[in-house]
């Protein structure tokens, strides 16, 4: 697939240098309001991810037993806990900040592993063709036809829960999308003039694939990354919510929500705040992902 001239300055993916930061408000006017709001929210989440240690007033395990299950300070709770406390007197705001960092960390790592693995296998399938391709595509079909939640639960049941295994599960989720996409794009790129030219100059296959074809398809893979990212967050939070993912004393947004269920009646904020955080994060990424897909794929425009 050809690289299209990239006419849209991208404020959402790369951290903008200082001079660009000042230009953002002017440029933002050109984008839909919803996309700007989503991008701003994701920027906040990323700031929390990076600066969690500076932002959180307490550590996420710090307990304050006299102040258990207190409501947020604006609803009449103690002043030092802006968003209230949980059943062990731990500040919800601090836990929310660390949980966000942890959930985002797991999601980035998981989606990244899936992207690298799937892209690599896509190249392998397109390069070797024949039975290698058949086998890989069969695996792709098999995984795509099963709800991944089920596979994840089965693997957790059979092998027990450990952090490494959990990350691997997150990585296996979604690899098939990249494999399918990459295989198709590489097959078509192989017939293009530039690939044929480089090859006839005597370049090794690895040079053709990674120096010439990969840069041309990477934009589509990035879009796929943003489309898969919310799915990974949802998988992590769902499993942690069921008590089968991230285990205490570590905390993630899903784990907080699951633990907060027990106190729903009198202390709803323990469950509702992390839930809102998950919802807004996946919503924002979906909005940006949709928008990016429309930008990169003109055939889908106006839909």
């Amino acid at each position, binding site marked *: 697939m050809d690289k299209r001239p990239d006419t849209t300055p991208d404020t959402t993916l790369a951290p903008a240098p200082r001079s660009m930061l000042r230009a953002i408000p002017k440029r933002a006017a050109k984008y839909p309001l*919803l996309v700007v709001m989503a991008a701003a929210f994701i920027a906040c989440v990323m700031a929390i991810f990076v600066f969690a240690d500076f932002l959180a007033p307490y550590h996420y395990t710090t307990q304050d037993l006299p102040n258990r299950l207190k409501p947020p300070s604006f609803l009449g709770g103690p002043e030092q806990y802006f968003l209230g406390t949980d059943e062990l007197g731990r500040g919800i705001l601090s836990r929310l900040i660390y949980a966000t960092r942890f959930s985002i960390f797991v999601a980035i790592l998981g989606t990244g592993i899936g992207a690298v693995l799937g892209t690599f296998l896509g190249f392998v399938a397109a390069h070797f063709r024949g039975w290698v391709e058949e086998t890989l595509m*069969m*695996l792709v*079909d*098999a995984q795509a*036809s*099963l*709800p*991944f*939640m*089920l*596979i994840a*639960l*089965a*693997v*957790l*049941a*059979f*092998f*027990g829960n450990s952090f490494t295994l959990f990350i691997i599960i997150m990585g296996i989720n979604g690899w098939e999308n990249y494999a399918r996409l990459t295989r198709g794009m590489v097959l078509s790129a192989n017939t293009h003039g530039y690939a044929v030219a480089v090859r006839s100059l005597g370049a090794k296959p690895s040079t053709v694939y990674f120096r010439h074809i990969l840069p041309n398809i990477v934009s589509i893979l990035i879009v796929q990354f943003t489309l898969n990212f*919310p799915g990974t967050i*949802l998988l992590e*939070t*769902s499993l942690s*919510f*069921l*008590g*089968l993912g991230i285990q205490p004393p570590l905390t993630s947004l*899903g784990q907080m*929500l*699951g633990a907060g*269920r027990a106190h*729903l*009646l009198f202390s*709803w904020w323990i*469950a*509702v705040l992390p*839930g*809102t955080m*998950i*919802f807004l994060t*996946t*919503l924002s990424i*979906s*909005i940006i992902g*949709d928008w990016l897909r429309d930008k990169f794929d003109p055939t*889908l425009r*106006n*839909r």
Partner: protein
Amino acid sequence: MNFRFIAVKLFRALITMWLVITFAFLVLKLSGDPIEIMLGDEAEPDVVEYYRVLYGLDRPIHEQYIKYFVGIAHGDLGFSLIDERDVVEMIFEAVPNTLFLGGIALAISLVIGIPLGIIAALNRNKPVDRFVMTFAVFGFSIPNFFLGILLILMFSLWLRWLPSSGMGTVWHIIMPAITLGTSAAGSLARFARSSMLEVLNKSYMRTATAKGVPRRQRIQWHALPNAAIPLVTILGFRIGDLIGGSIVTEAVFAWPGVGRLLVSAVTAKDLAVVQGILLMVAFTMVIANLLVDLIYGWADPRVRTSAVMDKE
């Protein structure tokens, strides 16, 4: 419908099934000694040996594999060492409840999603369209478990209108079905909209306009049937999502279905039940996908030929 098309689809379905069974077998073998899990590691060696022979675990691996396969072919999914019951029996007790919940959720998502998508397409870029699309994005971005918790908080704990868990009366089904149906409704609305928009841009729609077919008839007889074709495939995918979503939804509302059985089996490390459910859901999904492919091939003649050409 031609024979070759059916044969190719059937072959793929069988291969997927075989892969899943092999996966379940391998994982079961890799996960450790079931006798040790059952008896603990302080059991007498000859007791352990007795059970190994009893369950055929002393046999070479390929014999066990064939025995496993034959067992599944006879509808034997093993025995739960924790509940001391037949796995098939436990699953069959839970299946009707899940089907009931899933069926109502699917109905809700169809009744809400498809008309909304079509209305959005017919009013493209107007406020109605934007409103519907915003609703759709919200619908499929909100996690099942969070929506469930919000509904429980609102209607069970604060308003005290609806029961928060279990099943029995009509009132019990309302919140789980809405929770499960919302995300499917959101994505169905989007697909219905894009499918409809594509058809509306086709040349035969222009022809129909040119020869003076009234708008209502154009939409009803020319646009809708053609827009419905891709929706059949999407529906196939949604069934998978519904099964995935029902796992969490059933856990939230303590709905006594397959999802809750699975979660409690995973928590209790009841491996026989887990692999039984894995195989059963895989089987259901394979059959559902096969049916979707066949319906698709029947509804759209172009697919029949192209699918076979792909394979060649």
